[in-house]
């Protein structure tokens, strides 16, 4: 910045910020400014917004401006929710035939079992909407919007335990160290919002099985991408963003005053040293100041109408619940946050599955449906991609004994169901199929890499072109794999 200091400081604070920003953004041509700004800052909706993206990105017109990814951690049971297998009631308690299992490896939780007794779902299924999509009785709200969903019954993955499986979903690798899908998006597409991060993570505990599955920072980390692309986790306890609040005794005016002083001193230092990183620092402190206002405004539901609040269910008033996070997701979407990811824990049902599934559905069914209806009503669903699902499926055979009212299911990587909705997708579609044991895919398999490639595609990104050079190699989210699932695209 070659701005004359005297002139600069003669400006009022707001104008000064504008100058700083503008100069700063201009410098980005030199490869220092914007690269350093990264996922957290762009020029709002103005001409600078696109500058935060990688050159050439998006690769083509995006169908989805943003994504709300409703991750159901622990792995929901597909045959109890979306993939009915009525034939199984005749097989109740019989051993799963080896011709179906085909020697597949099992987790050590059931590999020692003497038998693999088939446990048909206890729940009633029916068809809903014009599309006639199947839903289990425990999802009265999600089935109520049956024609919005694109149901993929033929997902499959490679991992068999939670930690590697959820890491695989999020980063395209079972092992730690790779960037998460949200970080990739922030890196490639930048931000549409000047006051909020481009990748926001919200977490909640489930009532179905308290505490399962634990989450890890790695799931939203930037991996080997610069740290600025990591997901900013809004907290389910305490202040919504770490260190957001000023110290007690310091009001906003005093913070403004202290930042003005800081800016002046930094500017003075810059005039001596000429280091553009100092300008960047000033800009980051100003963005922090704006976040201090925008985040509380974002998390304050007092201007939501009673009917909207009611539609999300009673828990919406309790911060940190799935319901509250769904409403927060809508508010983030309205503010053009690009990647909003909810993680709801509690889906790992090795035993006592029926009551646990009921608990999880009572947490998630109504708010999920309310979110989609709310987005639709506001005209946001057309350019928002919704994803609902977990890290793998569950076994048709019971872990432990089957009783009249209970059974459990182990991890199953060979097939599971995910739900998508919104931007660029066929509505009311059920895609892919599984065999009568819900064990193997019989039609249109969709690998995790394929799903991620398709998500990126809908965001306007060719997954083979979004690469980052690390250890001398061009890495990408889908490794060297992944095919677009064209059958689900509108």
């Amino acid at each position, binding site marked *: 910045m070659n701005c004359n200091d005297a002139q600069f400081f003669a400006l009022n604070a707001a104008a000064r910020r504008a100058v700083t920003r503008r100069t700063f953004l201009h410098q980005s041509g030199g*490869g220092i400014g914007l690269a350093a700004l990264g996922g*957290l*800052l762009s020029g709002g909706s103005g001409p600078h917004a696109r500058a935060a993206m990688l050159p050439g990105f998006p690769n083509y017109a995006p169908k989805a401006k943003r994504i709300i990814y409703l991750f159901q951690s622990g792995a929901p049971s597909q045959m109890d929710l979306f993939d009915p297998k009525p034939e199984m009631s005749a097989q109740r308690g019989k051993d799963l035939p080896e011709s179906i299992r085909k020697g597949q490896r099992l987790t*050590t*939780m059931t590999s020692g079992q003497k038998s693999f007794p088939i446990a048909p779902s206890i729940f009633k299924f029916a068809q809903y909407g014009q599309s006639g999509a199947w839903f289990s009785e425990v999802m009265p709200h999600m089935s109520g919007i049956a024609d919005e969903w694109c149901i993929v019954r033929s997902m499959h993955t490679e991992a*068999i335990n939670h*930690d590697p499986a959820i890491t695989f979903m999020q980063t395209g690798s079972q*092992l*730690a160290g790779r960037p998460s899908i949200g970080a990739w998006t922030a890196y490639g597409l930048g931000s549409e919002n000047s006051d909020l991060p481009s990748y926001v993570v919200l977490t909640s505990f489930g009532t179905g099985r308290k*505490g399962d599955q*634990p*989450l*890890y*920072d*790695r799931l939203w*980390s930037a991996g080997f991408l*610069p*740290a*600025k692309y*990591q997901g900013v986790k809004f*907290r*389910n*306890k*305490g202040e919504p*963003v*770490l*260190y*957001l609040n*000023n*110290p*007690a*005794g310091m009001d906003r005016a*005093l913070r403004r*005053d*202290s930042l003005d*002083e*800081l800016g*002046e*001193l*930094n500017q*003075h*230092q810059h005039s001596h*040293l*000429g*280091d553009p990183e100092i300008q*960047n*620092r000033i800009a*980051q*402190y100003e*963005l*922090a100041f704006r*976040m*201090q206002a925008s985040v509380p405004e974002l998390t304050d539901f007092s201007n939501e109408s009673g009917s909207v609040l009611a539609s999300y269910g009673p828990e919406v008033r309790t911060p940190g619940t799935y319901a509250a996070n769904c409403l927060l997701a809508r508010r983030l979407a309205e503010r053009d946050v690009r990647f909003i990811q909810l993680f709801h824990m509690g889906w790992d049902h090795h035993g006592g599955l029926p009551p646990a599934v009921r608990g999880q559905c009572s947490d998630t069914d109504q708010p999920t449906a309310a979110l989609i209806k709310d987005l639709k009503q506001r005209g946001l669903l057309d350019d928002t991609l919704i994803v609902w699902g977990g890290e793998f499926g569950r076994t048709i055979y019971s872990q432990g004994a089957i009783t009249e009212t209970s059974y459990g299911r*182990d991890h199953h990587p060979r097939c599971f169901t995910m739900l998508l909705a919104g931007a660029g997708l066929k509505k009311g579609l059920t895609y892919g199929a599984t065999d009568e044991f819900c064990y193997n895919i019989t039609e249109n398999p969709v690998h995790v890499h394929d799903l991620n490639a398709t998500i990126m595609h809908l965001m306007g990104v060719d997954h*083979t*072109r979004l*690469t980052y050079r690390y*250890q*001398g*190699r061009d890495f990408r989210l889908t490794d060297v794999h992944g095919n677009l699932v064209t059958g689900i695209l509108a």
Partner: protein
Amino acid sequence: MPPSFLWFTAIVSLCAASHSFAAERVQFNKDVRPILSDTCFHCHGPDEKERKGGLRLDVRAEALKPAKSGATALVPGNPEKSEIITRILSKDSEEVMPPNKLHKNLTAAQKEILRNWVAQGAEYEGHWAFIKPVRIDPPLRTPNPIDGFLRAKLSEVGLTPSPEASRETLIRRVTLDLTGLPPTPAEVSAFVSDTQPDAYGRVVDRLLASPVYGEHMASPWLDLARYADSNGFQSDTSREMWHWREWLIGAFNRNLPFDQFTIEQLAGDMLPNSTKDQVLATGFNRNHRLNGEGGRIVEEWFAETVIDRVETTGLTWMALTFNCCRCHDHKYDPITQKEFYQLFSYFNSGEETGVLGEFGGSGSSKKGGNTQPVVFLPTEEEAAKLASLERDIKAAESQLATARKELPTLVAAWEKDFTAALGDASAMWTDPAVLEARSLGGATLSAQPDGSYLAGGKNPANDSYEITLRPKSGQFTGLQLEVFPDASLPSKSLGRSGGGNFVLTGVEIDIHAPGAGEPSAALLIRAEADYEQKGYEVAKIADGQTKPVNGKRAPDKKTGKVGWAIDGAEPAKKVPRKALFICAPIQLAEGTTLTVRLVHASNFGDHNLGRFRLRTSALPAEALSLKGAALSESLKTALQCDASKRSPMQRAEIEKFYIANTSNLVRQGETLLTDLRKNLKETTESQHSSMVMKEAAKPKPAFILVRGEYDKPAEEVPRALPAILPILPEGASNDRLGLAKWLVSGEHPLTARVWVNRTWERLFGTGIVKTTENFGSQAEWPSHPELLDWLATEFVRLKWDMKAMQRLLVTSEAYRQSSIISPEHMAKDPENRLLARMPRLRLSAETLRDQALAVSGLLVSKIGGPSVHPYMPEAVWDETSVYGNLRNYQADTGEGLYRRTLYTIWKRTSAPPSMLLFDSPSREICTVKRGRSNTPTQALALLNEVTYVEAARKLAEGMLLEGGASADTRVEWAFQKVLGRKPDAFELEKVASRLKARLEQFGANETAARQMIAIGNSKPVATLPSGELAAYTVTANVLLNLDETLSRP
């Protein structure tokens, strides 16, 4: 081509891309290899499975052969006939190389390079990093040879080094770089006023000798070693590896040469006569995660563990990405999948499972949560206890041996009395005459035909039954109590409670000898029962025979329970029960009567006996048994046999019976020894420990794993080193120790270069090889290849002396120059690869916090020890997990809040948030390089996190107490503290005027002032007015957030 020539030709401008290549000799390694490697080798390189069209381009001889298509890729000297040139220049989207779908289109300049290269003969060179560095003298003579290399290159682009930085800048720079802490104002002023020519050198020596040097060096090594205090994965339970961290700090401080440093960490356990310290050092390769997830498959995670070691060792010492080869041959480097598993075989023969083991597991952190093999590291107290236990065990063993020797004598003496007593009695139990049986509480006790008594009528609370017996004269040794179910009793059970249970709390026996006055009491010494309800064991009745107080016996202190019960309410438990009560033998005169009182003094008032029978015995106590025959037939035979004629088996049987059934020295010795050994085991296991490597006696076989999958083993592979790298040094064993020695033999082309480059990156911001994490074919061409090699050879020449090398770097002219950026710099070398100035670097996460603690005076200097718990926002560990024992974070209250940041407890799945914000890795895997990002969330942390606000307040206290009387002098004092320099007039005016305004604001708002100064665990100085202190705190908060403060100058 000799390597020296290789470097010589490499000395060309970095900006070569703008020059015309037609006139210059194209150089393969610098110009051509990066293009081929990045765009061609993937399909035409080392990996045979990926190879397209039968064309291999990374080996010249192969590239000169006709491919499957018949065309020849390379015709040296003839670009027009070379298919490679035809294809890269093709306009046909089907023909053009690289294929469009790869999105790796060549630039015009790159095409030109390849064309010229072919025209000039298409010569190849081996990859520079795989060739041993060759030392050549610097092109210019300078006091520090480093500058000779740098100046030569600068002059090529018309740049000169910047002038030396100010003394204040210089001492702050070098102090932060070598110790991670800022200089004190006294250190700054001493250096500024030191006019001796060696003043700077002495500062460097002081810093290298200071113990905080080792702490600072340890931090980046912890990233490489993926050090943490938790096991990682799902539950992420705690582990204890801080002793290894302490070893590491110590190793840096005593300047352990890097070769030894390497050998001890990779194979210290295999050194001949290895010390405990050398074994502890091998924790380096036990710092990886360990999976404890419920459904984990052990073989899978064992393989991952070993693969992690190959990856970590490869990255740390060689900057090679071996991990690419776990599934297939390397795409870029000449390393095969087979060679990967050959390296794997050096690391797979430990005595371990590869998963979270017996000490760990969810929730329990016994033995620190570590997994075998471990080395135990007792505290002084534990060591003393262990030594004393071992002494006691020795003593007990010898006492027992003595007692065993005396056994025949003891047995002989006992046997006489025993057989005599046995001889008198024909049966074990006899029925005495019952003179009277009554209930003291008013129940009825009616005699039954089998000699038992049945209680009936009212069931008074806490009843006692008194039965008067007249046994035969002679010896009396014990009483048998039989209890029977009865149809008349509740639930047809044995007791009188609603459920049919009883709780017997006392058996008292009064002996009335004829003619004697007061009766005497028999002393119960043992009680046994054939069934005991849990917590209601019969032995308690014989524990000293305390009488009930106020009708109740005192319950057991541990369990709160009292007396003997038999689960009488359970359907399956309504069967006859027996108990026996043995007392010290008494001789009964003719006509003696016994009054036996059965007491029910528990809290369960109605739990009285229902139907019972009493019998007495005259046999010796050791012959009494619940089972009936206490003495086996063989024992009886042995006893009857003459002592001299007994077989060894018979003697042993008698001795065994004696030991088990009498009070004797052998039994006492055995009991003592058992207790001591148990104590020793528990104490051993509760000691501090650290996980280490331990080589199994026999190497485990290793196999190529198809696609890297543990359950798809293919060909078995022996231990062997990659063919592209040197062979084992002479005399080295072909094992993990040999591998470590191979790395630091001085012949290895990578080890010294990698260390030197990483150190260069730390001090100068960017490595000479920018890709610090990769020296393979995809590495960036070094900015100063000759300098890199000179430094690498110098490191070996100096016997791997890490301090000496750093001294060399920081005393260079380049390191000491100013960091002011001129337009010329930006124009000619925007990335500053040529170092015409020093780069300013944002401080690391650790140094930022350490600096704030240090300048405010909060820092607690203490080297080593367990991890500490500084401030952390509420529930960071708990918002995403309710697993494992690392939950409910409790911040320390004392010095743990103010220790250096490298001691902060590290949970991998939820690493310290203020660290992650500043680019620190999660420590789940080996990480070579940290970014230096600049984000708003960092600003929030530095402005608002408790540590920084508390540090600001402490700094403000210093300003008020030590900074003189005026605002100006106080601001000056603070600048000296934080930045090591005085403020200039502009700064002083700005800061002082804002401060003045804030003094007024806080003066008018006492509440706000009090709130602000109350932040943090340390108490504000009571004598300072709160408004004043608050205003100064805000100013200090600004100073701690200056870009200058956050940067290495």
